[in-house]
């Protein structure tokens, strides 16, 4: 038996956790191991290695340990207890050849434990003439050797300079592992202790003491920074380094001390650790040489289970240098190393996720996670589903090879193997009937039922499905991409729709989590082919809410770029209010002979208010529309008419208009307004949905605004191409404004591939005044020709073109 004491001059270096993990690693590598907690004043080894039952016994004061053994030795002759009653067999995974026995300090931190410890101290004083702590501790060691014949006795020794710490390191141990951080006080103390241990006398039958040093929590940076190198020289002997990992602060449990190295091709930031797992496991494997294959198998298992635990419990994650919060499983619902089954046939789950407090009598397993080596994984999952009734079984076989199974729901509970690779989180069990089913249909269904947490994943799926291109070579699935856009566009709830837009917005980066590092080309594609169409297809309340929400500093409002796309792709114009301000402002300054050397920027800044109207703003108004206040027959302003009657009259007379009634573009201030009451009445009377009438109106009025404020490709603006204000008496729709705008509205809606929206547009158009119906006559006109005519009209030369006759609404009348 080799006795290895783990010692640290100061606490907080990860000593106890290292003992626990070394013990498990060795046991899983086929070795017989006993782990003894001699940190009597601050014991914790049972917290790392003990099962829930052990922890419950510790809490109730009925867990026996080293303190009780020492007391028994000192007070009773012969001893009353058998060491076998005290040692706890740590349940190891199925198929493990080795064994691990835990001898905790006692029932810490219950009151019973502290009472027992006080009794031990008294007894040591009383009995010291019969043999003190030295004899008692060595007696315990000898009993362990006699009873269990382990290959390794791993001792968690007391921190600092104490008698027990001294005994454990100088006379009990064959080897001491001294842990220290790079903190000066820790290093100095370790040096003093190391010198003392090297000079300490040994029993005549003992070999010289071997001392290994571990510098833990080594800060990131060059592995051998000058400080660390100097420290290694000062300590002498065998020195290894373990890097710092902030994750330890959150969840210091066996298995969960370390992060693995980044998987070569994963691209997942979640696994970007400091390599602490690898460094530690490599150190253990090198320090306790044994069967290489067994050690590698243990290493793979620990890494895989660690990854699973990490994924399930991490409440934040880092994506593209940003930290996001995350709905992880509460620790109270998780348990490690739980055995299920009967005496004849049982298996140990590495992790169990319960539906409520783990260990509570009424709690049931939701998900079982087991690492399986050299077994039929399908059969193992079947056994788990039969035995536990869990909804999901995850079978691990290496760090990156996971299989998820769920019950198919059929009478025989045949396991259904899922394509999903990541572990389901709490919301998956709440939102998905099968938590492993992350198909596009299932996710879209969950989103529409009010689970926006799947939006990121859906956007990612869309990007994957459509990420093909001439340069990409990814599997192109246009039908999936279209299904996603159509599915998201069907969201009705305004707040949910706003979140859909936000998830698809260029500024939303979470999809980087799935797709890896940012790619400007992909961002542009997501924006143009997912975000922009959704902006026009989703309920306009959501789109306008997004566009009028808080804007980023020094940037355009959300959605501005989608409007710019509409301007470019449909009208052939440029929409960039900032550029307009800069170019036009500069031109004005040059004309005015402004002394640029004296005041270069303030002059431009002062001009800014004059250009406010060049940026389109949006509003949904509950007020009555301008046409409710006037009629074409009556020059006098009158009391507002009942909006329902007004809309009915207009529909009956085929004189429904968009501008001035359903919405408006106010050219003086560059504002697009939708009138919610008129839209609702129109939708009701035409048997349409208000959101579709609203979307058609939004597109129509935005096109009016762009036709006015957009710049030609040569940079010129034509501010005189403005609609007559709808709130003036004797307002008449401008036929060429409306005819052209309807034509472009139609073509934009066709491009959106939204049948409901197209139906709404055509239904409305059928009841509209001639100017709004004129588009039907030239619907097949190429958009380039239409743009050409639009440009000439904008410049005031359009009336002379042959197209004017075609566009004249009176032609239809005649």
């Amino acid at each position, binding site marked *: 038996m080799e006795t290895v004491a783990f010692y640290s001059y100061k606490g907080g270096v990860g000593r106890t956790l290292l003992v626990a993990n070394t013990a498990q690693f060795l046991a899983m590598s086929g070795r017989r191991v006993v782990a003894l907690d001699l940190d009597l004043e601050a014991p914790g080894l049972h917290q790392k290695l003990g099962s829930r039952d052990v922890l419950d016994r510790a809490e109730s004061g009925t867990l026996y340990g080293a303190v009780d053994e020492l007391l028994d030795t000192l007070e009773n002759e012969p001893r009353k207890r058998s060491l076998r009653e005290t040692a706890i067999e740590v349940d190891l995974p199925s198929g493990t050849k080795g064994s691990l026995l835990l001898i905790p300090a006692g029932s810490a931190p219950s009151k019973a434990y502290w009472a027992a410890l006080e009794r031990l101290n008294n007894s040591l004083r009383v009995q010291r003439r*019969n043999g003190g702590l030295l*004899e008692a501790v*060595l007696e315990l060691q000898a009993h362990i050797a006699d009873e269990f014949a382990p290959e390794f006795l791993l001792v968690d020794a007391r921190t600092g300079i104490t008698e027990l710490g001294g005994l454990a390191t100088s006379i009990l141990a064959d080897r001491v592992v001294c842990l220290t951080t790079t903190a000066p006080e820790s290093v100095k103390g370790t040096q003093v202790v190391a010198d003392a241990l090297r000079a300490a006398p*040994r029993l005549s039958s003992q070999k010289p003491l071997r001392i290994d040093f571990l510098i833990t929590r080594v800060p990131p940076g060059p592995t051998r920074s000058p400080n660390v190198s100097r420290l290694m020289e000062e300590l002498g002997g065998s020195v290894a380094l373990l890097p710092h990992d902030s994750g330890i602060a959150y969840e210091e449990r066996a298995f969960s001390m370390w992060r693995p190295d980044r998987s070569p091709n994963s691209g997942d930031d979640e696994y970007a650790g400091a390599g602490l797992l690898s460094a530690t496991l490599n150190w253990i494997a090198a320090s306790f040489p044994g069967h290489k294959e067994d050690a590698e198998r243990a290493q793979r298992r620990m890494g895989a289970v660690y990854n699973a635990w990490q994924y399930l419990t991490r409440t934040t994650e880092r994506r593209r240098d940003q930290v996001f919060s995350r709905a992880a499983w509460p620790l109270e619902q998780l348990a490690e190393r739980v055995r299920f089954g009967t005496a004849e046939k049982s298996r140990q789950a590495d992790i169990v996720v319960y539906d409520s407090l783990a260990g509570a009598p009424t709690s049931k397993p939701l998900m079982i996670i087991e690492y399986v080596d050299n077994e039929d994984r399908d059969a193992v999952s079947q056994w788990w589903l039969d035995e536990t009734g869990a909804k999901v079984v995850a079978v691990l076989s290496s760090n990156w090879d996971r299989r998820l199974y769920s019950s198919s729901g059929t009478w025989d509970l045949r396991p259904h193997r899922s394509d999903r690779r990541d572990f389901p989180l709490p919301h998956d069990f709440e939102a998905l009937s099968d938590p492993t089913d992350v198909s596009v249909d299932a996710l879209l269904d969950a989103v529409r039922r009010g689970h926006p947490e799947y939006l990121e994943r859906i956007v990612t799926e869309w990007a994957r499905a459509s990420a093909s291109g001439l340069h990409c070579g990814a599997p192109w699935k246009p039908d999936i991409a279209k299904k996603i856009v159509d599915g998201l566009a069907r969201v009705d709830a305004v707040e949910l729709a706003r979140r859909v837009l936000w998830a698809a917005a260029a500024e939303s980066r979470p999809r980087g989590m799935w797709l890896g590092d940012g790619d400007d080309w992909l961002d542009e594609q997501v924006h143009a082919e997912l975000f922009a169409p959704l902006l026009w297809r989703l309920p306009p309340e959501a789109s306008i809410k997004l566009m009028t929400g808080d804007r980023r500093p020094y940037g355009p409002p959300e959605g501005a770029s989608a409007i710019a796309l509409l301007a470019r792709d449909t009208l052939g114009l440029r929409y960039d209010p900032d550029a307009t301000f800069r170019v036009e402002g500069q031109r004005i300054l040059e004309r005015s002979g402004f002394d640029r050397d004296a005041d270069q920027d303030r002059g431009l800044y002062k001009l800014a208010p004059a250009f406010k109207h060049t940026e389109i703003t949006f509003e949904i108004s509950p007020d009555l529309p301008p046409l409710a206040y006037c009629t074409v027959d009556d020059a006098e302003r009158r009391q507002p008419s009942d909006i329902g009657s007004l809309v009915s009259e207009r529909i009956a007379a085929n004189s429904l208009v968009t501008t001035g009634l359903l919405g408006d573009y106010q050219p003086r201030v560059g504002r697009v307004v939708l009138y919610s009451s008129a839209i609702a009445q129109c939708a009701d009377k035409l048997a349409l949905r208000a959101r579709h009438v609203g979307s058609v109106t939004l597109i129509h009025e935005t096109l009016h605004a762009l036709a006015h404020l957009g710049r030609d490709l040569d940079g010129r603006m034509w501010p005189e191409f403005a609609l007559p204000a709808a709130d003036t008496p004797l307002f008449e729709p401008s036929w060429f404004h409306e005819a052209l705008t309807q034509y472009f509205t139609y073509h934009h809606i066709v491009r959106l591939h939204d049948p409901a929206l197209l139906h709404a547009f055509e239904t409305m158009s059928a009841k509209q005044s001639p100017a709004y119906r004129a588009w039907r006559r030239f619907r097949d006109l190429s958009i380039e020709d239409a743009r050409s005519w639009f440009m000439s009209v904008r410049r005031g030369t359009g009336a002379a073109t042959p197209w004017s006759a075609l566009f004249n609404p009176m032609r239809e009348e005649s």
Partner: protein
Amino acid sequence: MMETALLALTEDELNTLVSIAIRRAEVSDDVNSPTASDAWHEVMVYEERIASITRPEEITGGIARVGAVRAALAAGQRLEAARLASLYLAEEALPLERRVAMERAFERDREHRARRFSALARTGRLAELDEWRATASRHPRVFPVAA
């Protein structure tokens, strides 16, 4: 080195004090007092002083020598007991029965410890521990070690 006050005591006075000290140590033993070890140490000091002023062949001298060794063992000071025993056994005039008594005291102590630390005894490490203590006591050390 013995204290001046101790050196000033007469044999009669020392006999009186040692009787009282023995009684106190026995009572301390009976009640499992943490001070029992100290009480036996006091007995050892008196016995050692009496031994130093008496001859080994005298009844008082023989009893004191055996008493000093027994008291040192009872106090748990095995190194001191061994030192005293080697000192007294070197005295040719020490009667045989006293020599046997001393050896029996050591024997009983070994048996008692072997019963208490049975596993250690089987490995032969109990004796090693006494040697280790002797070495450690002469060695500069960082970690405290109980006697």
